[in-house]
């Protein structure tokens, strides 16, 4: 099976600043690849290189079997791109936006009307068909952007933070759509800051300061040595006074790492530490412990650990 997307030592520099450094990875057809990383770490630049909008300084890449530099016309015909800014024409109606992109992709009149109807049905835009794009809410604008990107039935779809700034319901519905597309055989490359979204991806890549520092399935990432060092266990501690418990936990010798998640602490400790000991040690300082449980590292744990590790290095 050839990869739907592949990158081999992709590098992009602006002046002295290297935005993306030696990026290598592959994405299998029909999967959703989650591309994560802090703001400014090189996510959008990577997408733009793969879409042919930005030329890499070195390295190579292929999308849907087309070389991103030499066969960028082929790339363009095979991909859909949904940018952060929902690139729509606000003065055009939903239908006119779709008509325009249908023409831009060179679909003939018959195919255009079939595809318009298909994407309108898929995204549920029918009742807004004659609404000006400007008057749509954020979630619907995003659906229109997605619909526009799907008109030419792209095999690979790039989505740059597609759910930024839209409400949780719209977010969930959009993801249901993405799953449907993937199950129909499309390959999706998605960037996001939402961990719940990232956890739904087939595979993940984490880029930090231009370097791809982690790549794999969720389980593979959880098992990274930096995340789950051998001989350690991970606990979630719910308590009333998180800050006091946090300070106390950090002073325990066998505790390797403590992170606050809302009203919980996530504690990485030596395997010798158990629930009873934590309850005894933290209880008095925190004014009581509600719950202690052994947990698997969450994706957020993974990224906090990776970012710390590389930020320190």
């Amino acid at each position, binding site marked *: 099976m050839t990869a739907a997307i592949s990158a081999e030592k992709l590098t992009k520099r602006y002046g002295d600043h290297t935005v993306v450094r030696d990026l290598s990875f592959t994405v299998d057809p029909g999967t959703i690849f989650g591309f994560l990383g802090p703001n400014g770490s090189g996510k959008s630049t990577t997408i733009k290189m793969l879409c042919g909008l930005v030329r890499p300084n070195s390295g190579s890449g292929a999308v849907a079997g087309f070389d991103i530099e030499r066969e960028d*016309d082929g790339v363009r015909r095979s991909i859909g791109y949904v940018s952060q800014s929902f690139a729509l024409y606000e003065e055009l109606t939903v239908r006119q936006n779709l008509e325009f992109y249908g023409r831009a992709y060179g679909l003939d009149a018959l195919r255009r009307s079939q595809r318009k109807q298909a994407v309108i049905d898929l995204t549920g835009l029918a009742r807004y068909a004659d609404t000006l794009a400007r008057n749509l809410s954020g979630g619907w604008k995003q659906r229109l952007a997605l619909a526009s990107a799907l008109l030419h039935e792209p095999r690979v779809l790039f989505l740059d933070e597609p759910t930024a700034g839209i409400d949780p319901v719209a977010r969930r519905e959009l993801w249901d759509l993405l799953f449907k597309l993937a199950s129909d055989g499309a390959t999706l490359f998605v960037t996001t800051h939402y961990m719940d979204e990232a956890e739904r991806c087939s595979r993940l890549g984490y880029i930090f300061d231009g370097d791809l520092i982690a790549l794999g399935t969720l389980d593979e990432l959880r098992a990274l040595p930096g995340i789950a060092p051998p001989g350690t266990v991970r606990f979630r501690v719910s308590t009333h006074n998180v800050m006091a418990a946090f300070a106390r936990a950090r002073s325990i010798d066998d505790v390797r790492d403590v992170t606050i998640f809302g009203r919980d602490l996530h504690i990485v400790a030596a395997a010798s530490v158990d629930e009873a000991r934590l309850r005894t040690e933290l209880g008095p300082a925190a004014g009581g412990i509600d719950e202690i449980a052994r947990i698997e590292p969450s994706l957020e744990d993974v990224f906090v650990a990776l970012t710390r590790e590389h930020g320190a290095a």
Partner: protein
Amino acid sequence: MRRSFDVRGFRAVLYKEVIHVVHDRITLILALMLPLIQLLLFGWAINTRVEHISAAYFDEDHGVAAVQLLDAMRASDEFDLVYRAASRDDLRTRIVSGRVRVAIDIPPNFTADVRAGRQAQLQVLIDGSDSSIAQEALAAATGIGQAVSLELHGGGVPLIDVRPRMLFNPSLRSANFLVPGLIGVIMQLITIFLTALSIVGERERGTLDQLLVTPIGTTGLMLGKIAPYAVIGFVDFLAVLGAMRFIFNVPIAGSVWLLLLLAMGFLIASLGLGLLISSVARTQAQAMLMAFGVMLPSILLSGFFFERDAMPLVMQWIGYAIPLTYFLEILRGIVLRGETMSSLWPSVTAMLALGTALLVVASVRFAKSTT
């Protein structure tokens, strides 16, 4: 590599742009009305009647006819007789130094000639630097000469022969001279602004990237973007040309068809400039400032206001890089002098070459600025 031109891409962009233009009523109305309004404003401002032109006189005659003539001038709204010269040299110095606009020279035998029924010559020197003042002075002096002549002698051939002489600007630029130039200036203004803002607007909204991931080639994209503005620019041209002909009564001496054809050539050059700006500017505010940056030299160095021959050589060279310079030659040549291709071809060739060069450079820059 990106395919350079795709007809379907061009038509797709055109489809969208036409909807844009039609939906954006305010911009459309402004784009169509502003040129006409500007022409009327400028045109009428140029045509404003001039009064109280300062004049000096030298009366070597001292006779009744001379006194009557000078009284008539004092009584008129047009002239203020501010200085009585002691000699002919003194009179000349006054006007050369710019302290008066008009100098009236009454020769010694003026009254005697009129009495004897002979034609009496009246020398009127006019400072032609300001065409509107000069024209008014000319008309008023001639009128007053005829009126006084009539009073003194009744009907028949006027006995006072007013001999006007234009100083400093013998060709005397008139509204006929300025209005055709204005058309060129306004055309350039509107096309540069519309194109630059429309394309930079896409960049600002982030839709440019979206267009560039489609198979639309950059050429198709650019042509589709500028075609509607070329049409608007041409409609504007027809409107202001009509206004020139029928409101300002400037007759078109040469071929209207040739003028329309060459106007299209000028539009291409103008759109090229707009495109060039849009390949550099990142925001609409930048595009506006750059458009202004192009407009001022165009107005100042193209020969619209100031005689190009009188400029320093460097300024003349800069003028050669401005399409408007050539279009003004063409406009004035056809409208005022009835020129044809046989004499216009150097300007036409230069304008088209410059326009093509601008368009090519802009396309290359635009394509580069997008990857």
